[in-house]
């Protein structure tokens, strides 16, 4: 367990943790879902579970962009990388995500031109600097990154670039939460809402979770104290039988979101009728595609992609873990065939994936403790 005085504000952490114990009804079991993978990472890194009473369970949600992407989309994107003259550009997070015939890095090793970019505008710059090649940017992310892709496409259009396209895999958070609430095997009492998605969409889009579904939701920051305070706010709502959207992360999240970002998204993207999510299946109106006005920059329009559905390796239970039905360590492959060094499922790749977070912090800690307990500290054989 992490010592409380290692935290930045140890007294506040202690006080908030005891407030949580005071508020939690010992007769009840609480299941709170943190929607965002950034929260999952923070929860494991700081060992926040150890500060919570055992009847508060944190369920990890689907907010990890590379984790929810089905393998078929990765294959589709990589099929474009195989076309002559194409530069395949993607964020570093994507590089070790396995497709059927390997990861983007393995494609690079086989001679395909695969480049890591840190920003969609860097992909645009690659296109400017390589007029004889075609640069395809493999876009992923929720509303946190979609506006940047949108603005990049607006710039490409204004410049009349002819050799740039985007393979769009942007998804939206609200339909994913709806799918989880509709799922019969899920029971969630309340939500810790995503922080940085909300800087773009604001707090209003969560209203139905409170008013129609009767579940409290608190948009939260990422520091240990933020997450603990959000849990206090959720417990207060539940105790007072309230169902509200609250904003714990006011220092970065305006209630109305970022209007310029929403405007850029609306200009470039429209909702797909449906999109497949790993683990959650097909969800209607849950992803973005590029509008007809920008069709010349749409990789799906410019190239023919196979569009084949690929099922995950049978033994891997990514879907159940993504939905929060299974804990990472309950998957048969966890820590055996599937590790951060050799990931089989995407949840083991990204630091925001719950399997990688669990492996890096919980699993390694348990392994170390087991090792220590099995290793004799004194001359074991002669002592009784």
């Amino acid at each position, binding site marked *: 367990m992490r010592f409380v005085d290692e935290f*930045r504000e140890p007294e506040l952490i202690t006080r908030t943790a005891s407030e949580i114990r005071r508020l939690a009804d010992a007769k009840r079991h609480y299941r709170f879902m943190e929607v*965002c*993978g*950034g*929260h999952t*990472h*923070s929860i494991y*890194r*700081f060992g926040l579970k150890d500060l919570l009473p055992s009847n508060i369970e944190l369920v990890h949600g689907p*907010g*990890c*962009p590379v984790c929810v992407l089905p393998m078929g989309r990765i294959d589709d994107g990589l099929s474009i990388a195989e076309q002559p003259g194409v530069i395949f550009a993607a*964020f*570093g*997070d994507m590089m070790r995500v396995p497709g059927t015939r390997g990861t983007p*890095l*393995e494609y*690079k*090793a086989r001679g395909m031109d695969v*480049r*890591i*970019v*840190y*920003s*969609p*505008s*860097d992909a645009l*710059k690659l296109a400017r600097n390589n007029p004889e090649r075609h640069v395809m940017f493999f876009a*992923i*992310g929720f509303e*946190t*990154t979609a*506006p*940047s892709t949108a*603005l990049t496409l607006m710039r490409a259009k204004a410049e009349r670039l002819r050799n740039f396209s985007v393979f769009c895999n942007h998804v939206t958070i609200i339909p994913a939460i709806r799918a989880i609430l509709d799922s019969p095997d899920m029971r969630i009492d309340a939500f810790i809402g*995503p*922080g*940085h*998605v909300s*800087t*773009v969409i604001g707090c209003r889009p969560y209203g139905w979770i409170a008013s129609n579904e009767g579940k409290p939701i608190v948009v939260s920051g*990422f*520091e240990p104290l933020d997450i603990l305070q959000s849990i206090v706010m959720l417990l207060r709502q539940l105790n007072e039988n309230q169902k509200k959207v609250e904003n714990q992360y006011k*220092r*970065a*999240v*305006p209630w109305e979101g*970022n*209007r*310029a*970002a929403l405007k*850029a998204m609306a200009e470039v993207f429209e909702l797909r009728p449906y999109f497949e999510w790993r683990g959650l299946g097909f969800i209607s109106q849950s992803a973005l595609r590029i509008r007809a006005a920008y069709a010349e920059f749409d990789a799906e329009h410019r190239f023919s992609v196979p569009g084949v559905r690929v099922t995950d390796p049978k033994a891997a239970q990514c879907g159940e873990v993504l939905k929060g039905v299974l804990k990472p360590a309950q998957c048969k492959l966890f820590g055996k065939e599937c590790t951060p060094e050799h990931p089989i499922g995407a949840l083991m790749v*990204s*630091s*925001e994936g719950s399997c990688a977070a669990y492996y890096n912090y919980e699993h390694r800690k348990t392994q170390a403790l087991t090792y220590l307990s099995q290793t004799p500290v004194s001359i074991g054989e002669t002592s009784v």
Partner: protein
Amino acid sequence: MCLAIPGKVVELLPEDRSLAVVDVLGVRRKVDLGLLQEDPPLAGDWVLIHVGFAMSKIGEADALAQLRMLTELGESDAAREEVQGYGLGEEEADEEAEAAESNAGP
């Protein structure tokens, strides 16, 4: 990707008002301000950055707290690397990124 990188706006660029030079953990790079056009930051302001774009303005104390947290999450090197990789109109940044990439190998 979910975790934003805080940076301090060092200089607004008169030749292109959609860009600013931002300092992140000692690394200076151009960052796109296009998504903050309704409330543009000034030099000295702190912003949260995702994939090369400033997404929101925040106070200095909160920015410093967020930087500390990135360090504690073991993400500060990744953040620095990401910012170093931003190649917005900067040739030397490009070369650095390419050098880093070739060092990384396949």
